[in-house]
């Protein structure tokens, strides 16, 4: 097969950063080529060079054997290169057909929009590629999966031959992901060439023909998917061997630390979301909570952290009753919380790393002195945690917003773990975080356990629950249906319980 697109020795510098360093990438006609790398490895920069949003300092782009000089997205689109952005570029108030033709409208006379013809062409295109959409529906009324099909049709309408899918699975349900794989395979059969950007290795193995790995702005290598494996790719991505399995010693549980009895609570719509939940956690033990999302896990964590009022129940930490105390009180009683949505509840994105590292503890000694901050102490605290938790960039004055997901999560983990908690609540601690950071955060959680802390781990990732927990509670419709020892828990058993079945 011939290469349709070749990027040769692309170098792109930003002030202080070499974002792309002699990167090579080639795409063959009709193949699905995965481009993987951790956040900040240079994937987006490379695609922005291809799209003419950035001008490279060195290197050439060849398309169908011709050297190209791309000035902007318009040029790339004209040439037949289409991009499906991670955050969909769709206008919610316009219809599917309007979104697809936007910028390349079908008109008659003096700019009169021929919506009928547009609808017809969109319907034909949708039939031809098996991308089911409703041309007349407004974007705001359609499900995410369909939005993605609209994005793909947008590129196909512009006769794209090269399709770039940027983290396309991030917003999809598992069923929609399978659907997307089928679409990708079909498009490749039709002779379209696909660049598939992701950092999830299972996806790479499931759908791609070849893989190119980027790390720190360099292309590490291109391999055939069938000739590689998850550990090998992970090592290429991170630059060292990665422990996909967590290394942990057997638990040595101590005294009873956390006791929760008959907890009930309502969700935001006033419906009972927690029903008579009881469990206990010993010192030096991790209790994992498994379950399909929306079965009361969020409400459980909120009640335990003082963010939601419980209707009945008891919650004791080492003999102190904490139920329905304020969030500040609970924090003050040495309960640490890594929230499930780091942007909403974990960070103030427009604060610096230094400020985020004391959020929630800002009123305590030694950070506060009377009504003032002790700035020297803040600075020292920030510098210590940044190096201990390897937060990048190593700049306490960087805004949280400018950090990658993994580093944002590290800021939260550092803040919560550094305060020497007795009870640690971690909700989805590695969601949207790259492999290196996942490994690091997992290790930190294990370390906390080994120091004798009680840990409650809530996660939608079954593999995470199974590798970290000592015992596993399964939630279904607001109840804990069973608590298993990790040795007796298998994926099948947990799956059955999560779906409401019995063992």
């Amino acid at each position, binding site marked *: 097969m011939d290469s349709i697109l070749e990027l040769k020795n692309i170098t792109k510098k930003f002030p202080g950063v070499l974002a792309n360093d002699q990167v090579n990438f080639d795409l063959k006609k009709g193949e699905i080529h995965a481009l993987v790398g951790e956040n900040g490895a240079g994937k987006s920069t490379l695609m922005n060079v291809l799209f003419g949003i950035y001008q490279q300092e060195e290197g050439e782009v060849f398309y169908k054997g011709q050297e190209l000089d791309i000035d902007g997205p318009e040029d790339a689109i004209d040439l037949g290169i289409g991009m499906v952005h991670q955050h969909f570029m769709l206008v919610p108030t316009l219809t599917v057909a309007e979104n697809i033709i936007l910028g390349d409208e079908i008109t008659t006379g003096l700019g009169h*929009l021929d919506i009928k013809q547009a609808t017809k062409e969109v319907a034909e295109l949708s039939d031809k590629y098996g991308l089911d959409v409703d041309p007349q529906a407004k974007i705001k009324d359609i499900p995410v999966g369909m939005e993605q099909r609209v994005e793909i049709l947008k590129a196909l309408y512009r006769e794209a031959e090269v399709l770039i899918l940027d983290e396309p699975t991030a917003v999809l349900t598992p069923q929609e992901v399978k659907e997307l794989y089928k679409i990708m395979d079909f498009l490749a059969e039709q002779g379209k060439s696909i660049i598939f950007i992701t950092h999830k290795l299972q996806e790479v193995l499931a759908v791609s023909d070849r893989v190119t790995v980027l790390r720190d702005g360099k292309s590490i290598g291109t391999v055939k998917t069938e000739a590689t494996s998850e550990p090998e790719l992970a090592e290429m991505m991170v630059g060292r061997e990665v422990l996909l399995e967590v290394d942990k010693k057997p638990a040595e549980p101590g005294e009873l630390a956390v006791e929760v009895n008959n907890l009930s609570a309502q969700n935001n719509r006033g419906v009972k979301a927690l029903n008579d939940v009881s469990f206990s956690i010993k010192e030096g033990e991790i209790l994992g909570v498994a379950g399909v999302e929306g079965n009361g896990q969020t409400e459980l964590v909120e009640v335990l952290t003082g963010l939601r009022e419980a209707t009945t129940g008891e919650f004791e930490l080492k003999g102190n009753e904490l139920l329905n105390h304020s969030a500040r009180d609970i924090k003050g009683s040495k309960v640490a919380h890594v929230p499930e949505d780091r942007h909403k509840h974990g960070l103030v994105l427009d604060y610096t790393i230094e400020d985020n590292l004391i959020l929630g503890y800002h009123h305590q000694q030694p950070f506060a002195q009377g009504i003032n901050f002790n700035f020297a102490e803040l600075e020292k605290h920030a510098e210590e945690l940044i190096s201990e938790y390897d937060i990048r960039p190593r700049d306490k004055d960087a805004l949280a917003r400018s950090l990658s997901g993994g580093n944002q999560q590290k800021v939260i983990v550092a803040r919560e773990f550094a305060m020497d908690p007795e009870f640690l609540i971690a909700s989805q601690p590695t969601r949207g975080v790259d492999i290196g950071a996942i490994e690091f955060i997992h290790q930190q959680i294990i370390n906390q356990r080994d120091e004798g802390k009680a840990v409650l781990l809530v996660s939608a990732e079954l593999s995470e629950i199974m590798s970290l927990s000592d015992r596993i509670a399964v939630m279904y419709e607001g109840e804990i249906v069973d608590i298993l020892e990790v040795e007796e828990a298998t994926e099948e058993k947990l799956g059955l319980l999560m779906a409401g079945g019995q063992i």
Partner: protein
Amino acid sequence: MEILEVLKQIFNLQTFSSTLRMATPLILAALGGIFSERSGVINIALEGMMLAGAFVAVVVSHFTASPWLGVVGAVIFSGLFALIHAVVSIEYHAKQVVSGVALNMLAAGGTVFLLNILFNTSGTSPSVNSLSYWGNFKPTVYLALVAVGITYYILFYTSFGLRVRSVGEHPHAADSLGISVKKIRYICVVTSGMLAGLGGAHMSVGTLDVFREGMTAGRGFIALAAMIFGKWHPVGALGASLLFGFFQALQIRLQGVLPIPGEFIQMIPYIFTVIALAGVIGKATPPQASGKPFKKGER
């Protein structure tokens, strides 16, 4: 007896034609607001643009003796005046509300100053030639109604309109398809000024034959209210403008008829504007990107 008399004063042909006259500047300025906000630029300087238009119409009519040239001058000048707002908010990403307030103050002060310089008077300009009637109304009234139709067609039936709506809702999407967000916004803001200027000209050389200091008396803001009340839709804005126009007409007709101090009656249109905005309309969703400067490459 008394009530019947009052009702007679309210519901007669005169009130209805004066409703239309009163609504005309509101309609034009509201359409201007629609263009600007649909493209993503808040324009609270409609008031100032109207005032500038009203003034320029009188000045041009004074020196050329042609009210029509006055109207043309008003439209061109207010378009240029709006260009300031466009440059400040599109090119330099300034806070659009602040820029709008500044333009309003500039227009209020500038017209008074120039009134002094050009006519050596304060408060009111000398009489100039005004537009003559076409049938029952001044030509600007018909122009306003035609403008509603044209705006509706442009926004919803042309490719330009589709682009305007996309730029006001999701500029990054438009940009990713090679549409120039800047260009569309410039065109829309300038158009908005031209329409507001026409509305101002209607007040000075249409309804009257002079310019008076501060003569727009908040109509630019009522037009903004009409735009919101009409949910950023030209036909909705027409309806809202007629309603507000009706209360203005009512206010004039009721003066002296009811045994209430005139000041209270003068409040009617403004009170009604507040009530209308306070939620009678239900949920009105402005264009998503309205008021947000567009920077390429940012999310």
